[in-house]
């Protein structure tokens, strides 16, 4: 698919800004799930700055697309994207995990404009997304429901209860994206509790399945176009192959960065790398 080169460049830049915000937020807070944030940053960028029909001036707009970050711990890029989109002032990002901040370690929908539902406990997003998708059909509304899950999250049984139900109710307005960064707290997903063969599992549950490189803006753009254009009455799932800690060399594929804040030197080094990537885009 031929893509608008300017769009791709704009999105790549935005992804770099979001990565920089994430590093700065976690540095200031002294905490944060940096690795699992960086892994889905490119997906987050394409969703919030290209695909999602949302309105920061009217966060409760009835026809908005519903986005649920089921892997709520990956909230650093979500907060950055919402602020950069205009849902709340950028200065708020400096309050991440400070006393009384609206921006906690997992997103709270009553506190943060643009956050659809409070998440953080894994395996909850997909069932809630089904409820929203059923409501859309009941109201004859065209909005789409999209949820991003972690790959380790698929070890939760509720994901598969929901996988059955979404196919049973033929929810073609529901799209799941799995951020497959291949690592969870206790180690590689395949060693902790193997979830493969993932593609076959979702297919056999009755879903339309796509795979993509979840850190490649062009691939994310074209895959989402295909998935949202798919016509059959099936829920859709995208297996997104990603790298935990993507964009910062010493964090990539390192499980230690699942929940760890950079110190000053590490943050400086991370931002230098991100800025270098930005320079190459110009």
């Amino acid at each position, binding site marked *: 698919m031929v893509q608008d080169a300017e769009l791709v460049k704009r999105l790549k830049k935005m992804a770099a800004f979001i990565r920089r915000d994430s590093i700065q937020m976690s540095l200031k807070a002294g905490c944060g799930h940096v690795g699992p944030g960086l892994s889905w940053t490119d997906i987050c960028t394409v969703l919030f700055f290209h695909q999602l029909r949302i309105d920061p001036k009217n966060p409760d707009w009835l026809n908005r697309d519903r986005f649920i970050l089921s892997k709520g711990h990956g909230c650093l890029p979500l907060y950055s994207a919402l602020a950069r989109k205009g849902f709340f002032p950028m200065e708020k990002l400096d309050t991440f995990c400070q006393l009384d901040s609206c921006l906690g370690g997992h997103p709270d929908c009553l506190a943060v404009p643009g956050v659809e*539902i409070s998440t953080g406990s894994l395996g909850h997003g997909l069932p809630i997304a089904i409820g929203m998708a059923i409501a859309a059909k009941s109201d004859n509304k065209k909005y789409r429901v999209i949820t991003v899950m972690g790959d380790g999250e698929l070890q939760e049984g509720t994901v598969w209860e929901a996988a059955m139900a979404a196919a049973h109710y033929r929810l073609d307005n529901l799209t799941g994206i799995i951020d497959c960064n291949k690592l969870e707290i206790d180690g590689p997903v395949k060693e902790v509790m193997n979830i493969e063969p993932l593609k076959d599992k979702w297919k056999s549950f009755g879903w339309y399945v796509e795979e993509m490189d979840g850190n490649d803006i062009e691939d994310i753009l074209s895959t989402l176009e295909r998935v949202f254009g798919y016509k059959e009455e099936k829920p859709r799932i995208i297996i997104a192959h990603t790298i935990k800690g993507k964009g910062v060399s010493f964090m990539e594929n390192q499980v230690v960065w699942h929940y760890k804040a950079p110190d000053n030197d590490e943050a400086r080094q991370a931002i230098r790398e991100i800025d270098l990537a930005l320079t190459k885009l110009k």
Partner: protein
Amino acid sequence: MSEKSTSMRDVFRETVLELAEKNPDIFVLTADVGVSFGFPTMKERIPKQTVETGIAEQNMVGIATGLAHSGKIPFVFAHAFVLSMRALEQIRTDVCYSNANVKFVGYCGGVAGGVLGNTHHALEDIGILKSLPNMSIIVPADGKEMGKAVRAAVEHKGPVYMRIGRSNEPIIYQNDYNFEMGKAVTLREGKDISLIATGLVVSEALKAADELAEEGIDARVINIHTIKPLDRETVIRAAEETRGIVTVEEHNLWGGLGESVATVIAEEKCVPVKRIGIPDTFVVIGAHPEILERYGITASNIADKAREIVS
């Protein structure tokens, strides 16, 4: 299931159907226990407002949350034990944390499951759920009260848990009365002792009051249908105007109505309090009334406890 059934589950079905036929935002969800309360009828009459999830209660509560966040008023029907325990984290994190407008109906509350045994009893549901912020808890005393509770739950914005029996609960209210969430109903005035009960065992408290009256003991009977938020004023007034309180419930003595009442009494106005309920144990096999009898959730035991305080 006759149209005139006074069973809480049948009243629930009829009331919610009546409301849902007028309000397309009302949904009913169930997880393969629908036949017991007439879900097939619902599917026929409000097909677009029913969701069957199969045997998957956690998923059901998640779906209800998504519906509620889309402006719907979902009623989730399941056995009380599985709702309050298996789906507890969804109730707490999905529903209560975001104050989602989900209504729960816990079927076979207490030991109404009878010979089905401990797996199917719920003697912990109230204690567990009352510790969740934003949650309101109603335990209706009979079918008429259940109908009023369902209507009140629709009007109330936020999560509500309603605990019902299995079927054929005793009738408490012969006439219409004013029901307000969070406001206890004084069924009988009295100045010597207060019997404070909840759920279908309110009937035993009324019988106990009759028994006591024959001995010249004037017992007040208070039905606390809303355990949370608790009507503290009515409890305090009972402590001020009578010589003590006996609480009666179909729940573990830890965590239930008696604990809530005793807390208010300890904080506000100390009078003797005796609690009747299930002691901290799994119960014997038996029919529902036999189990209640075994653990002293009976009019005669209530009267005995009242006499101990008054004498």
